[in-house]
Each structure stands twice: as C-alpha cells, then as structure tokens.
C-alpha cells in the first residue's frame, strides 16, 4: 500500500509517495492528486524516490493529474523517481513528457 503525504502551499505543493502503486490502489493515488489540484494546489512536485513499484494503472493516474494541473495553468513535476519508476516512465514513453529533476530542491526551485 502506498503512503501519500502532501505539504507546502499554493506556490508549490510537495507530494511525497512511498510504497507500491499497483492496479489495486492506483485510484487512491489519483484521488489524492486530484483532490490537491481541486483544492488549488496546481504547482506540484511529486517525490517518487520511495516508490518501489508502479504499474500502468499508476501511470494513468499520474498522467490524468498532470493533464488536470496543466488545464488549470499549473504543472506537475517529478523529483528523483526511483529506478523502477523511471523504467516504467521510459517504457511508456513518458520520460519526455514530464519534467524530471534529480533532487526535490531542484524541482521545487524550478517553479
């Protein structure tokens, strides 16, 4: 099961996720992101360094939230994805869609 923690403010929200995002709990991940965006947190840094499993269901939620943030004139940027997350991003061809940063501070500072 994944743990999701959201902090920060309207300027930049930091979403830290740890654990598994699989086909069973991906909707929980998507709901957390969507609810943050609906609450006005449209500039998001998503720290995926502690995510050790992500299926295509997790990627779908990630892309839907990304599109939603963009539509609200915001963005969703990724910080230090684990090797396993990076691998699925690459397999899906999404590594060129997201802005990916090697550290959380770089990602926050990019806004």
């Amino acid at each position, binding site marked *: 099961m994944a743990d999701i923690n959201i902090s920060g403010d309207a300027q930049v929200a930091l979403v830290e996720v740890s654990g598994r995002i*699989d086909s069973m709990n991906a909707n929980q991940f998507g709901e957390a992101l969507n609810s943050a965006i609906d609450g006005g947190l449209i500039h998001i840094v998503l720290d995926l360094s502690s995510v050790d499993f992500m299926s295509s269901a997790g990627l*779908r939620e990630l892309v*839907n939230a990304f599109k939603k943030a963009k539509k609200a004139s915001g963005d969703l940027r990724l910080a230090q994805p684990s090797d396993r997350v990076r691998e699925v991003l690459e397999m*899906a061809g999404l590594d060129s869609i997201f802005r990916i940063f090697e550290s959380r501070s770089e990602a926050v500072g990019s806004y």
Partner: protein
Amino acid sequence: MSAARRELEVAATLDQLQHVTAFVVNAGRETTRLTDHQLYHCELSVDEIFSNIIEHGFKHQGASHTVRISCQALSDRFEIIIRDDAPAFDPFKQQAPAKAFSLDDGSVGGWGLRFVMTCMDSVEYRHEDGENWIILGKKYT
C-alpha cells in the same frame, strides 16, 4: 531437471492482486536464480495481466469465478501460467499504443501490454478447454 510446479487459485477479484504477485515473486525467488530486477519484471507483468483479466475479462463481476496461477522453474526460464474462464480474449492481438504520447490524446493508457511484452522474454496466448491461458517466460540470463 525442473523444480515442482507451484499453483495458486484465487477469486477473480482485484483484492487478490497482491496475493497473486507475492506468490509469483516468492516462487521465483525460492526456485530460480532470477535477480531482484528480473523478479520485478515478472511482478509487474503479472499485475498487468491479472488486473486486465479482472477489469476486461470479468468486468469486475468475477467473484464467483477463479483465476489459477502456476509457476515453474524450467531449465532455461521461469514460466508463469495464468488461466481464467472469462470469454476468449487474446490480449497480445490488441494494438499497443504508439510510443510517442501526446497530451492531446483523449484517453491515456494501454501501456500495460507493452510492459508485459518488454519485460518478459516470451508471451503466449492459448484458448484451451474453455479457458484463456497466458504463458509468460523469463530467462535466467
């Protein structure tokens, strides 16, 4: 010589997913020399296939059906067989989405099948005795 085949039968419901993936990873870890990364590829592929069966094969109405998973360490590969009695459906005949993704795409997804075909060394579909058989292979090297 091959190790004994291990089998698991679960209800065709998504809440069985982690039970299924843990079964496959443990079988691979205990009976093969696959690396953690190779086992992760097996786990990801089984997640995608099992959830696809529940979502599309049984349309989330599979509580009275079962899915059977079996694993065996063969001489050159770890073999995973997933069987269900949903309507006949060959997932590998479906069109995978283009690699280039555009934000303008109306819907997102379709990556699961690509993951399976990328992560596993062999994939095969059969329809036999009223059952869908998905046979996945991961080589040891």
